[in-house]
């Protein structure tokens, strides 16, 4: 099927690749279908693009690539609603925010857990004081809008 996206234009996606989020993302509860765009293996960054809202997309990463010790504990109920039969079926994704200061952060407090077998996913809010919503993963080079002054010799 074809979907419209603000960033990528019209793209072709397979219907069976649609990720279903029955509760949506917090703040975007009405948007329940996404597609994970990850066809660039040379970058850690992927896109979670809304199927039904061209303008809505999240940059996501696998948090383990940046924080190898990151761990989350799902309640029985959370595992049950995701229909997880085995922990290996769970895929973790965390959203990325590019701050106005150039800092690129990821939200370890509210990870997205996806069942790789069923492509059902939910955003989980952890009850874990170790994790916040802005963990720095890299810093972008500053782009100065003002012309640089010549340095004194």
């Amino acid at each position, binding site marked *: 099927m*074809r979907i419209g996206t*603000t*960033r*990528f*234009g*019209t*793209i*072709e996606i397979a219907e069976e690749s649609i990720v279903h989020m029955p509760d949506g*993302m*917090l*703040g*975007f509860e009405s948007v329940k279908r996404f597609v994970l*765009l*990850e*066809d*660039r293996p*040379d*970058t850690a*960054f*992927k*896109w979670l693009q809304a199927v039904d809202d061209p*303008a*809505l*997309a*999240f*940059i996501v990463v696998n948090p383990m690539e940046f924080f190898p010790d990151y761990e989350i504990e799902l*309640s*029985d*109920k959370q595992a*049950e609603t995701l229909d997880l039969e085995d922990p290996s079926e769970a895929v973790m994704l965390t*959203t*990325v*925010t*590019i*701050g106005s200061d150039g800092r*690129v952060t990821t*939200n370890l*407090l*509210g990870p997205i857990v996806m069942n790789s077998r069923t492509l059902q996913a939910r*955003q989980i*809010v*952890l*009850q874990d004081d170790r994790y*916040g*919503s*802005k963990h720095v993963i890299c810093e*972008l*080079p500053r*782009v100065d809008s003002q012309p640089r002054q010549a340095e004194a010799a």
Partner: protein
Amino acid sequence: MLILSRKIGQHIVIGGGIEITVVDVRGEQVRLGITAPRSVAVHRKELLEQVTAENIEAAASALNGNNVLGEMMPTRKTK
């Protein structure tokens, strides 16, 4: 809003199966014990608000193109 006064060790029951117990009160901090069915999500409100705010910020920053990350991003065009 219904406001009830409770002492340490006393409970509030909400509907069928949700019970809140005042465990301890120290200064400005109240410790609550919550028993609820597994189908009921219990969250500290400020954490929900924090994740909601971060989602909104993440979506906005992803939409603001022309950032360096954009060049690292996947591109997929209609065949």
